[in-house]
């Protein structure tokens, strides 16, 4: 985490603006998606730049959490050539989307941005104005702060501050008695208002039609209660199992502060121990663990 203070946001920001300007002026890109300053100091918001004159809107600071890769889906059927700025996790998201056949590489320009880790905006909102803001939870465990794939890049690589995932939070729940586990999840999922922000920001949740948007299908009901919410939670976690790129966006955007990554990390932990280490989104060739099998998978069902 020591990278944070030696990292020069302003310098990278200047490079980003220059890069955007160059791409737009040369016509290589018809639009550039980056971040601009949001309503509050700890907020940033995606911005679409179409003209070289507007590049100064672009900013780069410790609150540029939003993953811009998912926006590429919106332009797959247009003639746009879209450039996006992408942190390490965003490039993994980009690979996820390529692998899921949701975007086409030739229509995108990925500008890699090495990332020193984003700050916890939720804490920032609670803390006094000038307090030291901790790193966002998912970023603390980030092992790929540098882009894993890119067409162009700005900044210089940072050294990863984390080498192994920290499963202590998952293990803490695993260690609880069954009733306590249930009470814990029950209490978390009673808070869920099913706004689907977690799903919609998730690069792995990229279906054109989610089963939770098909209330006529009988899969789910619009009734909101702990049971239905947990059904939603487990199902979504299962759907992204082995496909989650661990950006932690789902948890960050949850207005109810449900610890969603605790679900995702449980699957990640079990996949690693049962089927071998797997890192989603590092490339576009490695198949998702649930789309293949090995005859020598652990046998517990005899």
């Amino acid at each position, binding site marked *: 985490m020591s990278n944070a203070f030696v990292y020069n946001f302003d310098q990278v920001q200047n490079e980003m603006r220059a890069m955007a300007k160059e791409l737009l002026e040369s016509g290589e890109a018809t639009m550039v998606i980056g971040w601009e300053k949001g309503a509050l100091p700890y907020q940033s918001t995606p911005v679409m730049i179409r003209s070289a004159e507007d590049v100064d809107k672009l900013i780069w600071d410790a609150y540029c959490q939003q993953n811009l890769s998912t926006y590429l889906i919106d332009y797959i059927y247009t003639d746009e050539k879209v450039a996006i700025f992408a942190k390490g996790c965003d490039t993994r998201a980009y690979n996820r989307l390529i692998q*899921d056949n949701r975007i086409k590489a030739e229509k995108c320009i990925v500008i890699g941005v090495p990332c020193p880790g984003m700050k916890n905006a939720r804490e920032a909102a609670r803390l006094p104005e000038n307090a030291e803001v901790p790193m966002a939870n998912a970023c603390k465990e980030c092992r790929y702060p540098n882009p894993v794939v890119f067409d162009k890049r700005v900044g210089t690589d940072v050294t990863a501050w984390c080498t192994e995932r920290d499963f202590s939070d998952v293990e803490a729940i695993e260690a609880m008695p069954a009733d306590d586990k249930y009470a814990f999840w029950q209490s978390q999922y009673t808070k869920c208002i099913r706004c689907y922000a977690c799903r919609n920001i998730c690069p792995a949740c990229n*279906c054109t039609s989610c089963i939770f948007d098909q209330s006529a299908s009988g*899969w789910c009901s619009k009734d909101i209660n702990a049971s239905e919410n947990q059904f939603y939670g487990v199902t979504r976690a299962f759907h992204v199992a082995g496909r989650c790129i661990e950006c932690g966006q789902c948890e960050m955007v949850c207005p109810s502060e449900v610890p969603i990554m605790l679900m995702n990390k449980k699957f990640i932990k079990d996949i690693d121990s049962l089927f071998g280490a797997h890192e989603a989104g590092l490339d576009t060739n490695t198949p*998702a663990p649930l789309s293949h099998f090995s005859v020598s998978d652990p046998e517990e069902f005899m």
Partner: protein
Amino acid sequence: MERVGVFICHCGSNIGAVVDCARVAESVKDYPGVAFSTDYKYMCSEPGQEMIQNAIREHNLNRVVVASCSPRMHEKTFRACVAKAGLNEYMFEMANIREHCSWVHAGRNEEATEKAIDLVKMAISKVCNNEVLMKGHAPVTKRALVVGGGIAGIQCALDIANNGYQVDILERTPSIGGKMSQIDKTFPTIDCSACILTPKMVEASSHPNIKLITFAELEKVDGYVGNFEVTIRSKARSVDMSKCTGCGTCMTKCPGKADDEFNMNLRKRTAIYTPFPQAIPNKPVIDRESCLKFKSRKEGKDVCGVCAKLCPAGAIDYEQQDELFTERYGAIVMATGYEQFDHSIYGEYGYGKYPDVISGLHFERLVNASGPTQGHIVRPSDHKEPKTVVMVKCVGSRDPEHGKSYCSRTCCMYTAKQATMIRDHCPDTKVYVFYMDVRTPGKLYDEFYNRTREEYGVEYIRGRVSKIYQDGETLRVKGEDTLLGRQIEIDADMVILANAMIPNPDSERMAQIVGIGYDKDGWFTESHPKLGPVETHTAGVFLAGACQGPKDIPDSVAQAGAAAVKVCALLSKDQLETEPTVSKVDNKLCSGCGLCVPVCPYKAISLETIQERVAGKTIERQVANINGSLCQGCGACTVTCRSGAANLKHFTNAQILAEVDALCQTIL
């Protein structure tokens, strides 16, 4: 509007004695969707079926539930029954209240009745979600492929060809003939194997409906019953088959030497060779491993070329490459045969180190007039005639610890045959046979065995051999006579082991290519051990001969004929009915992520590009497309599909959820 008819069968007292059928019928009378409900003694009987058909007409039913035995028993019966009354046969469901209820809950009438009610409600809820389905039709390619050119493959191909259908024999070695061509005599008649085999080989090679594809391997099988697309690798023969006349001049001066596999490595052969004199096609191949030219090429040189110089037809082609080609077939017969168990794992038999401890197949070559010893029974080590021969049965068979758990079926008889042949050729030679059991369940088999002992004086000793070791020129055989309860030691000149039959070492890979099952030993799995012995679980793929399990020649030939009949029955149809209970993708819901593609065991799913109108603009995007003829309806894709776009007809998400809900509704 669903109008379900519910029919509860008593099955005499089978169900009726435990389940209160009348109460079951009564309790679902008002269940949503039910228009009629009754019970009857035997629903599957003529009057029972008439009752269903009358009710369909009288009550205007559009769906039917029968609660009776297992659908594995009578689903077809009742589907046909409702179809006769004008309903689509898939608007029918069965509730299993016999095997799953009355038979397993005897005496617990109250609880069994409650359970039956639940099962019937589940079936009703499911049938309310059933959809009209139509069987599909696929054309049939009227040509068969027989994989393996041994006696089973040859016989099967002949039978198919004689029925008027085209058939190809795919053989991986340079010649057809298989194991039978290596065998000298056949039991129990002691007629010459080659004399009965070669006419079949010639018939096959000259039959207008048969094409031989030798020195070739099965590479890939796509498609489905009636329409297989088979990719075959034709290995480089280095001899142009169209030019070669089969004169054999090329082989006369070849300096390359290699072990002669056909003669069980008992002698050498040339690098350009035909496996045996009667080989078909009788055209040589170059064994590139032992050919001097090809060996020198690896070192950057290019020597020899004698055969090319000698060949009067100019048929030698050193530049030939393996060729891949694709053929279409309507049916495939697997006749890949067997291999001999390798006895070198057994320390007690000398780990295969002693040259005079040989296997049964070695003996066949020794005793064969065109074999390495011109038919003289001599020891491989010093070419002396053995005066004492010990034969050991069950080498690798019936030995779950080190070998195979099964009985290889043929060894008792071929041991007896070989024993009589030794006594015939060398009347002075003593023959001892160590055995665990003697199993001779075939026509004239036991008679033959008795003659071996009584007329030929072969001594049978019941017991295992515990050790064989070389002592000077003799082999000392130690064993136990369990009938007399004493240790035996025999000084033998030669030991013949009756090795087990094992599947072709490649059988598992072959099974995966073709998409059929195999058992723990690697034998191909038949679809039913009794009622489907030549069929497999993959429609259109059949089994002939020893690839399914150890078999002797008459059994292999019989099975080959059986498989041929199944093939002909299939090829006689112009179109095949296909089950409609397959997966289907709802394009509207599909994102085209392709996660279902690798999951499908039948390669039935591919991504296709479709055109769509989105916000007033025509766009192209990819969606999964399921080939309904390839799909077998397992449902693996439906769970992989996050958005529920892939759904399995007749076992749809809605149907299964309806069943789950129906079962649980009495709880909440």
